[in-house]
């Protein structure tokens, strides 16, 4: 996803001279080409996340279009108050891109894992939370963010996510993308677990289960209409997110189900609300937390039998 992001930003910067990227001493390699093409428009302000948000707000108030890139963990929790006041309260359309979200770099431990970022950012007004599911969605999200009049947080990963969509897929912030229509069970996934959702579908097809897949790239504002429409086709909704269960996508879907009194069962899959007790890279932790396609499919089957 990183490469897709960097390439998209180059193409946007080519046509829009007001685009500026702020780095806080991370992502230097990712933006190497951007820096060589636009040396003055990618500034490294040092290790200072709080200032990055404030500076972005000031630049934006004076006509610049600002992207900030850093690790999701640092650029959300460290500077939460600046995001709240400098961006959201002032309603300024700065775009924050958080890399290595979820447990992408699991072995680095709790400091580097961003597993509560969706929850805290979506609690603020005047900001969209977008977790693209594949490299195509990353590029679409960045393109679409250019038209926003409020801030947005784009949460990405770098686990070699395979493209799921064609490059010309129809993308709109706030509208989920139906990937496969199915019967009885629909998986709504956000972020990098889209590939996991598809793998679950493939496992189920062997048993003649036809699971629907919907990529909910925007967690805030959630696509309420889509969830309401799912009532006509499905009995069970499964949510997938590499984020603390109940506080991100799953929580938003649950709210819609409750608010509209929808006759849908909801089974949430995500990370537990705890810090890692042992070292583990992403694959190790995904296994540990039962988030492999096989483990989730097995769990779904058991729940159906009950």
């Amino acid at each position, binding site marked *: 996803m990183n490469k897709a992001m960097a390439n998209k930003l180059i193409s946007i910067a080519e046509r829009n001279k007001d685009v*500026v990227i702020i780095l806080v001493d991370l992502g230097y390699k990712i933006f190497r080409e951007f820096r060589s093409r636009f040396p*003055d428009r990618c*500034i490294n*302000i*040092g290790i*200072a996340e*709080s*200032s990055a*948000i*404030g*500076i*972005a*707000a*000031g*630049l*934006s*108030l*004076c*006509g*610049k279009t600002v992207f900030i890139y850093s690790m999701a963990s640092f650029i959300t929790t460290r500077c939460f*108050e*600046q995001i709240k*006041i*400098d961006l959201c*309260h*002032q*309603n300024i359309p700065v775009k924050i891109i958080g890399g290595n979200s979820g447990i992408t770099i699991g072995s680095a431990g709790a400091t580097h894992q961003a597993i509560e970022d969706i929850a805290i950012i979506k609690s603020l007004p005047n900001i969209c939370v977008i977790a693209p599911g594949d490299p195509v969605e990353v590029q679409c999200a960045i393109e679409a963010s250019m038209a926003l009049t409020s801030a947005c947080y784009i949460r990405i990963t770098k686990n070699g996510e395979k493209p799921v969509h064609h490059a010309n897929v129809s993308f709109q912030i706030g509208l989920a993308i139906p990937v496969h229509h199915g019967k009885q069970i629909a998986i709504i996934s956000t972020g990098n677990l889209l590939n996991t959702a598809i793998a679950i579908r493939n496992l189920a097809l062997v048993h003649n289960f036809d699971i629907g897949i919907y990529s909910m790239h925007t967690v805030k504002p959630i696509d309420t209409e889509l969830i309401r429409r799912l009532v006509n086709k499905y009995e069970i909704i499964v949510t997938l997110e590499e984020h603390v269960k109940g506080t991100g996508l799953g929580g938003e879907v649950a709210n819609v189900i409750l608010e509209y009194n929808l006759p849908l069962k909801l089974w949430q899959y995500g990370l537990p609300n705890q810090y890692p007790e042992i070292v583990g890279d992403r694959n190790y932790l995904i296994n540990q937390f039962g988030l492999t396609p096989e483990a989730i499919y097995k769990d779904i089957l058991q729940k159906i039998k009950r």
Partner: protein
Amino acid sequence: MNYKMISSLEDIRKQLLHMHLETSHIASSLSSLEIIYELYSNVLNIDSMDAQNRDRFILSKGHAVSALYCVLKSRGLLEYNIYDFAKNGSMLFSHPDRRTSKSIEISAGSLGHGLAIAVGMALAAKYNQLSYRVFVLMGDGECEEGSVWEAASIASRFKLNNLIVLIDSNGLQDSDYVNNIMPVKSFKNKWESFDWELAECNNVSKELSKSILNRMNDKPLAIIVHTIKGKGIKEIEQQIDSHRFIVPKEKIPQYIKDIEELETT
């Protein structure tokens, strides 16, 4: 610049008495007032709040906003009745809110935010090849916030000579004297070690605009302005508990007398 002000400093001190019958922070407003008044009368180039090249004023110590409202009103830049300050249903929040008026450049109130935003505005001037300057008013207590020093480093690293920080240095913060809470060996040296040009000002009306004009012009400039917290109300001037002081209505005649006796600075 020389802009006509409808109200004098003395008028505004009296206005503030009536604005703070239920709301605190009058002492901070009286501390900052002369600086804000001087900027809007003689320093800031602002012909219209829509002008792209207007000078920017950032009130980072947002709790002194009542002084800003009065000065803006006096300059014809505020559309509201200042006596609606902090009243239910009004737009005059007791900390600046960008949604109130075009003349409120940023929302502030949580300390230590203003300088980074000002750095962004000053950088934008460089990008857009505009000549406007960005002025930030901070408290000396506010300088305990770590974010101030992040932004201060960045400002000098990018040689933002269009950025001017004014430190309302009254030596007091909410609960005590700054020197009792977090003493700094030399506040002046601290700024200089961050590679800022440094000036001090003891008399706002006589010295402030000169300090700004006489600067070296290749670094961001910080001016330590020695002020008096609660200036004009004798019994709260430089008092530790002045921060939360609310004006008792029956004392207004006495305070007006104090204000009228105040030597013009």
